[in-house]
């Protein structure tokens, strides 16, 4: 099992939720995981129903079996200052630089630099050991940028190579790439059973593979419950309307006669079934398209009432059951 688990996905597919559930799932049985956020949206804090996360590793949840989930929202500016402090012993000069806007400048000047700082921090957590020589975190889970940008984000080496040909940033990029391209890392993509997210997933995987980044698993999120199966749908297509009306009537929904309450339900109910059938076919198509990727596929149920802490733990259990952790 790779120790750095990167979770990406098209916007709106719930990648933050999946990343958090994965961090919980990996923390069971007494393990310790770090959940890392890189886009400054405080999605983790919202999900775990805590106040905004500062730039420090903080315990946010306890997993069944005594495991712990820590969380960290990486702020690129702060990461750069840390970094300068570590290599140059800048002291108060760092603050002066910040005041001048130099730090803001340096982190925005080149998207690659920003990304090196973010991925660098995550890689540092992966490799960090305590005094006894044991890893501080068993796993690091990163809530990464969306599919459209993930390859670029992780492929910092190429990004930075054109800009910083020498210097510590260059060296840092090299070190980060060694971790990211190794078996220590797995990049998972979250999708929905809809055309656009699936297309983006397929494209994203091709890009990751072309960049020789290790692709992990595909997680299909928010899968709707199956109310009617293929057999039911076939019956729906062939059943006489009058028989349906009588059946509705016998269920206590009014008269089956033409114009009766039960009879008047038949048309709209069949209309809804038709819509359902159309979606069902579409979803099956998307499922088989994902199947062709040749990657482990996981499905997580939709929580119609919205995601909350209880739902998160349920998803974590589901992920464990499906062998993702």
């Amino acid at each position, binding site marked *: 099992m790779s120790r750095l688990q990167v979770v990406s996905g098209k*916007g*709106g597919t719930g990648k933050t939720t999946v990343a958090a559930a994965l961090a919980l799932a990996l923390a069971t049985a007494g393990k310790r995981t770090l959940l890392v956020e890189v*886009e400054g*949206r405080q999605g983790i804090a919202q999900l775990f129903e805590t106040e905004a996360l500062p730039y420090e590793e903080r315990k946010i949840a306890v997993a069944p079996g005594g495991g712990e989930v820590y969380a960290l929202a990486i702020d690129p500016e702060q990461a750069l200052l840390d970094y*300068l402090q570590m290599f*140059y012993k800048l002291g108060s000069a760092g603050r002066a*630089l910040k005041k*001048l*806007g*130099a730090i803001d*400048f*340096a982190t925005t*000047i*080149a*998207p*690659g630099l920003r990304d090196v700082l973010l991925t660098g921090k995550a890689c540092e957590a992966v490799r960090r050991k305590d005094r006894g020589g044991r890893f501080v975190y068993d796993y690091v889970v990163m809530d990464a940028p969306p599919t459209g940008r993930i390859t*670029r984000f992780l492929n910092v080496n190429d*990004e930075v190579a054109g*800009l*910083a040909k*020498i*210097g510590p940033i*260059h060296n840092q990029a090299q070190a980060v790439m060694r971790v990211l391209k190794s078996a220590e890392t797995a990049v998972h993509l979250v999708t929905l059973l809809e*055309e*656009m997210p699936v297309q983006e997933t397929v494209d994203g995987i091709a890009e990751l593979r072309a960049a020789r980044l290790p692709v992990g698993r595909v997680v299909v999120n928010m899968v709707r419950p199956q*109310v*009617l199966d293929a057999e039911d749908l076939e*019956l*729906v297509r062939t059943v*006489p*309307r*009058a*028989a*349906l009306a*009588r*059946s*509705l*009537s*016998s*269920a*206590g*929904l*009014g*008269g*089956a*006669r033409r*114009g009766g*309450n039960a009879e008047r*339900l038949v*048309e*709209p*109910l069949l*209309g*809804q*079934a038709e819509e*359902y059938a159309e*979606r069902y076919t*579409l979803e099956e198509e998307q499922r088989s398209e994902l199947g062709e990727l040749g990657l482990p596929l996981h499905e997580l149920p939709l929580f*119609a009432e*919205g995601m909350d802490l209880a739902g998160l733990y349920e998803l974590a259990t589901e992920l464990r059951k499906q062998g993702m952790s």
Partner: protein
Amino acid sequence: MSPDPAQAHETPRARETSRTHDNPRAHESARRLAPARMLDIDPLLDDPETRIVVCCGSGGVGKTTTAAALGLRAAERGRKVVVLTIDPARRLAQSMGIDSLDNVPRRVKGTEGGGELHAMMLDMKRTFDEVVEAHADPERAAAILANPFYQSLSAGFAGTQEYMAMEKLGQLRARDEWDLIVVDTPPSRSALDFLDAPKRLGSFLDGRLIRLLTAPAKLGGRAGMKFLNVGMTMMTGTLGKLLGGQLLKDVQTFVAAMDTTFGGFRTRADATYKLLQAPGTAFLVVAAPERDALREAAYFVERLAAEKMPLAGLVLNRVHGSGAGHLSAERALAAAENLEESRIVDQEDGKEPCNSPDTYGGSDSPSSHPDPGATRADTPAPTGTDAPPDTDAPASADAPDPDPSVDQVTAGLLRLHAERMQLLFREQRTRDRFTALHPEVAVAEVAALPGDVHDLSGLRDIGNKLADNRRELPEPSA
């Protein structure tokens, strides 16, 4: 569901009317706190004063599709329209017959009516290049385009896409070739990035630090600058160490070249910003009836107001409805259970009429419509007239339908309906929350489609739904 004549447009020019107006059933069961105002799309699109429509909202709510559908509708109503999309899904580009969308507006074929539809996709790098080429002499332009810092900035700076979308909009508007420009906004992580990014890029490129960095080149030798230069050397030294000296030099030459060739990014950013505030621009916030999307929409509405930008209304995509809205989820589920239980009972000791508390009829007479051979095709569609007194009876025990699979199908249909009604109720609650916060915002609702749009007629269909969204309103549950 049939159109309710009482709800027809009374004042076609009015942008909104009360949604539940004149619908007694809606009054009875209205759950919404205040009736949302109706957004009337056609007057907005037809008004010759409307020159720019901006579709904004968070990612994944159908923004691009809405922009394309609005463009098509306006064109088919006689206007000359260009749609500027940012990152259309392949299918959507194909639906406009232009899978090779590029930075130049292309005429979309197959539109009806007297107008014209053109479509284009923003190529941010190309647009940036064009800006440089338009404002620099060829030699200088070539130097800028070859600069590694420029290449990184034009391709990847967070906000370049937003900035370039604004730049392109400014260019299109300046050409005055189109009656109406419909703009899609970039798929940012937050809808607000779209408003912030141009300023951020502008202030970044015009900022104090960049000025400092480029100062020596421009002011070199002036006595008063000596002190500053010492500080500069220290600064550039540190940054140079960090980034590698080459990068810093690239930045310096880049900014110097840019600065002398066109009069400051900030000026340009400000100009496009003013264009957005001008009369003739209309913002449409696009959302789906989901908690996060509507929360984002509410932020956006507040932000537009703070920036004095004209908001026309909210487009709510993917709204679900039901033709059987009077049958509640609870009753549908109870009926489904009835059917499944009676199947078990049937197997044990024959049929037993099962009456739910809501059974309508009282008579036990057998169904007078024993038409087992009837197929769906020859049963007329139910009319949407007012409910006639329901005097007919539930089917009795000896109805000629021994096939248990029919009950199974019926139970399935009822469960499906219950799920739909629950969804519908949740959507309504989410909408109500938005309406309570922003009762002033007019809303247009578009029914959910099972699949993606593949062609012009699909877009036209969405346009129709947008313009006539009243019929898509779910019937209130009784």
